[in-house]
């Protein structure tokens, strides 16, 4: 068997190289997020947001932008039989799950690197909460990546893929979004960030990541069977 670390690095590098070359996911995700911020800006008719409203706008936008990337996550494996190539190789198949989830974390981090500053320019009077927000973004990205990779692998061979991913993913992401918005709300309060229950929400996010990471590890091999 090839070492899992080598196989993980090979699949992750392949995915990132493909995305850099074709730019099929990231620009669409970023454009969607920025457009949504513009719509919120004019729809809410507010030049600044804070607390739960700011948190809700941020996470609703990032979640739906993430769905675009999740939809395309396994397209390269479906086209030209890439799944078979992975199934024939002497590797632990859960490496594919880990590498795809890692690629999705990278996409989401890149998305946030572009869109969170734009969000701050559009809506925030005080950017002091953005520092601790990084921890929330990272933990939420890991949870979205674990759940999204699992759902995307199930949906990729379906003709209703574009419908199936949001239909299954969004209900599963509700606990994650509750924790993410709960952790973000005090960071974006008027008058600067506070840390009321911040640690508790981070632990909830971590627990979600752990549970869906373990579920993915346990069932992914089965999902790749015929």
């Amino acid at each position, binding site marked *: *068997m*090839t*070492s899992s670390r*080598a*196989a993980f*690095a*090979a*699949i992750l590098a*392949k995915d990132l*190289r*493909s995305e850099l*070359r*074709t730019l099929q996911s990231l620009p669409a995700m970023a454009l969607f997020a920025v457009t949504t911020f513009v719509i919120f800006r004019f729809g809410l008719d507010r030049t600044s947001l804070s607390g739960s409203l700011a948190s809700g706008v941020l996470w609703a936008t990032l979640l739906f932008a993430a769905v675009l990337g999740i939809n395309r996550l396994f397209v*390269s494996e479906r*086209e*030209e*039989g*890439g799944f*078979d*190539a*992975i*199934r*024939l*190789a*002497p*590797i632990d198949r859960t490496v594919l799950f880990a590498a795809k989830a890692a690629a999705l974390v990278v996409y989401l981090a890149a998305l946030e690197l572009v869109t969170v500053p734009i969000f701050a320019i559009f809506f925030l009077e005080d950017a002091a909460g953005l520092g601790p927000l990084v921890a929330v973004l990272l933990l939420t990205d890991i949870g979205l990546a674990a759940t999204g990779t699992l759902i995307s692998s199930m949906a990729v061979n379906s003709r209703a893929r574009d419908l199936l991913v949001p239909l299954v993913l969004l209900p599963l992401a509700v606990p994650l979004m509750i924790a993410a918005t709960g952790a973000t709300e005090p960071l974006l309060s008027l008058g600067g960030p506070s840390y009321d229950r911040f640690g508790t929400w981070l632990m909830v996010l971590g627990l979600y990541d752990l549970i869906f990471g373990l579920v993915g590890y346990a069932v992914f091999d089965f999902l790749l*069977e*015929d």
Partner: protein
Amino acid sequence: MPPAQEMAGPAISVAGLRRDYGDRPALEGVDFELAAGASLVVLGPNGAGKTTLLRILATLLRPSGGDVAVLGCALPDEAWKLRGRIGYLGHEPLLYRDLSGRENLRFQARLYGIERAEAEARIEELLRGVGMERRADERVAELSAGMRQRLSICRCVLHRPELLLLDEPDSNLDAEGRELARGLIGSGVGTTRVVVTHDPERHVPEADQVLRLGIGERAVVS
């Protein structure tokens, strides 16, 4: 690269193999044995189950019934032991369209645990073998079907498999391509081979055994 494993008995042993898709049997009553190093050609009309048989032997499909052993491993329970020992050439090239041919082969080499220097030498040798050394840095999406088939043949034999499972290996290849491919996957390479084909005149003379599959009929080995 996985070491060749010692094997007693036939390379492939199939008894009473059955595969159903829902209620429809795709393959029924297939029995044959193939000795190590021998070559089997599988013939039959469209829908007879040739590709299904090959995918079962490649561990990509589970049999619905019967006993199948490949390179001493019982399927499907010991399928994991077989990974890396089989070279499979299917209808799909199993290449990523957005990567170049060389990048695809490097990726495969990493999946199969081949050391970098050895992989580079092997990739160059194979690309020369199929006449693709000058086109290997172009994206697969930009290559013709025949060029993709040549690359796919390189992918299939990159890790020096003990068993070659070839589904229509000549498809999309021109006369030059067929001749070049013969050097890598033809009967002369000495590897156990199962070849599915609609071109018996080309492949049967080189075969040690022929398996004829029919729709709704028992498979016949000759």
